[in-house]
């Protein structure tokens, strides 16, 4: 291997150094402080497994863990299911111009504040809110939607839906149109072609879209807090609760690391599944 030139290093290193120093190191630092102790509201360097023991033996943590995992999984499945017919129609049924335009429209939500959107959703979902007012005019309700799991899921789907539709559209755009026609030609009807040909062809993209929905929902704290009521807590809420109570940063670090571990395992499993080869 030749020695890297000054030129290549000048271009490659700044980003590497920045992300190492301000992204990787803080995350590694998180591992370190998970073994520290807190005395008199001060963190002291240490090699103490007490924080891990304390968190991992608490049912509060495991309840939150399970709840968060179920919420995130539900959100990923729900969002994928809602997104797919839309993505399919955008990719297969619309003209190129409308397609481009819709993609642009779906990018817009990324540049709006999630907090602001959730606050607006509160207004929609609350007991005297807009949805219940509309339902009331029809003589139904009111339904308690705020501070429920339903509310949390509405928020999560709001967060994930544009991204999932876009990722699905991009993967569906790569589905070879000849394959769809070939399936039709071989007696495969409309719905069956979607299931037997389009979904397997776009599998990698569909799985990755669902994975992103899982990641976003798993780490989200705004929806569970503002639309779900925050009690019982999810893992993100647990982190903020722990940091607030007596500077217990080391314990919060343990929860955070458990979350990162979970996300990495899920991502690894999903990507392995997505790229799994058929045949010999």
């Amino acid at each position, binding site marked *: 291997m030749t020695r890297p030139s000054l030129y290549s290093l000048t271009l490659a290193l700044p980003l590497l150094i920045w992300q190492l120093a301000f992204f990787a190191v803080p995350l590694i630092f998180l591992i370190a402080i998970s073994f520290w102790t807190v005395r008199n509201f001060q963190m002291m360097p240490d090699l103490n497994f007490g924080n891990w023991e304390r968190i991992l033996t608490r049912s509060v943590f495991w309840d939150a863990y399970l709840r968060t995992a179920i919420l995130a999984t539900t959100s990923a499945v729900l969002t994928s299911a809602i997104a797919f017919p839309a993505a399919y129609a955008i990719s297969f049924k619309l003209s190129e111009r409308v397609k481009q335009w819709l993609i642009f429209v779906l990018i817009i939500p990324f540049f709006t504040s999630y907090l602001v959107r959730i606050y607006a959703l509160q207004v929609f979902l609350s007991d005297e809110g807009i949805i219940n007012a509309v339902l009331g005019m029809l003589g139904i309700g009111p339904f308690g939607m705020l501070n429920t799991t339903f509310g949390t899921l509405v928020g999560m789907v709001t967060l994930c839906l544009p991204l999932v539709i876009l990722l699905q559209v991009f993967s569906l755009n790569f589905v070879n149109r000849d394959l769809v026609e*070939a399936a039709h*030609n*071989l*007696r495969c009807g409309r719905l*069956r072609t979607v299931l037997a040909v389009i979904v397997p062809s776009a599998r990698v993209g569909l799985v990755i879209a669902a994975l992103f929905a899982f990641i976003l929902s798993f780490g989200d704290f705004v929806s569970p807090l503002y639309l779900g009521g925050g009690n019982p807590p999810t893992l993100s809420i647990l982190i903020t609760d722990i940091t607030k109570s007596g500077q217990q940063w080391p314990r919060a670090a343990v929860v955070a690391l458990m979350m990162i571990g979970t996300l990495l395992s899920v991502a690894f499993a999903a990507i392995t599944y997505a790229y799994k080869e058929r045949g*010999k």
Partner: protein
Amino acid sequence: MNMQTQVISDAIVRLEGVVKKFGEFTAVERADFEIGRGEFLAIMGSSGCGKTTTLRMLAGLEDPSEGDIYLDGQRVNGKATWDRDTPMVWQSLALFPFLTVQENVEFSLKMRGVGKVERAQRARIWLEKMQILEFAGRNISQLSGGQRQRVALARALVTEPKILLLDEPLSALDAHLKVRMQAVLSNLQKDLGITFVYVTHSMSEAFSMADRVVIMSRGKIEQIGTPQEIYHAPRNRFVAEFLGSANIFTGKLVEKAGDVWQVETAHGRFAVKASQAVAKSVGDTLSFVVSAEKMQIGALGAGVAGIRARVVGEEFVGASAILFLETESGEELKVQKSHGELASIDLHSGSTLTLHWEPEACHVLPGE
């Protein structure tokens, strides 16, 4: 004008006044022809001539804008491709990459609700026939081009259809493999006795495999006939030029003496032997062709006109060579001769030759 060169007693496909438009663009201007049961029909033309669109209308992947298509006596306009029995082999082959070879072949059986055991059985028969049984469990990506071709054929044929549609299936193969697959396809079609409709831009593929050839250009059908008919009796200038080896002359018919006509051209007056099918009277303009191998070099016989032309190039074609010549008025002529015959002439670039031909060597284009 009547495009149909013969009436087919037992047609499996009939196209009646079929027109296909995509917005402003007319892909197929008017198609009227029949395809016989058990026939190998090639549709030939350069890209954009409407040949693939015609095939896709047969498959049910496009609907005609006007006219009717009959399959087995039944009008099929508007009928979905999955309700027809017209399997197609795609130019890209369109094999499902997420299924194994055998699963690809089983696909249409599965769609018809054939049980698992029977499916596997029938698929394996076809894999065996196509000599790819050993690859049954493989992924498509692990196969060579020729093997994929065979999978695509097996997949389309496994339901034993009466007709198979092929859209330039050999275009991705190298020259050597192409010739081998041509033989495979030819034999397959004869053995099965089913109809093949084969779209291609290659004259050699069409002429070596097909019973009849349809030549299309810009959405119009220029000629339908057997390879021999087309080769020896092109209908018009387009077909003659498409075949590539003909010299075309245009002139005025000045005298008819039985079937020997006198035609006055820019190069002089020529005697042309006309067939009875051409309806022209004295004073009409007509075009005739003389194929390159029927051109003769050298001294003129009595009463035979000749053309002087300068040699501008030479191309070897196996046992013979084609000379390219230019007349004084700048028109290109082609002469095909054996190497032996050419060696006896003092030949170099720039030498001037006298060319002539027998009246019997001429073919009057009926469509001009």
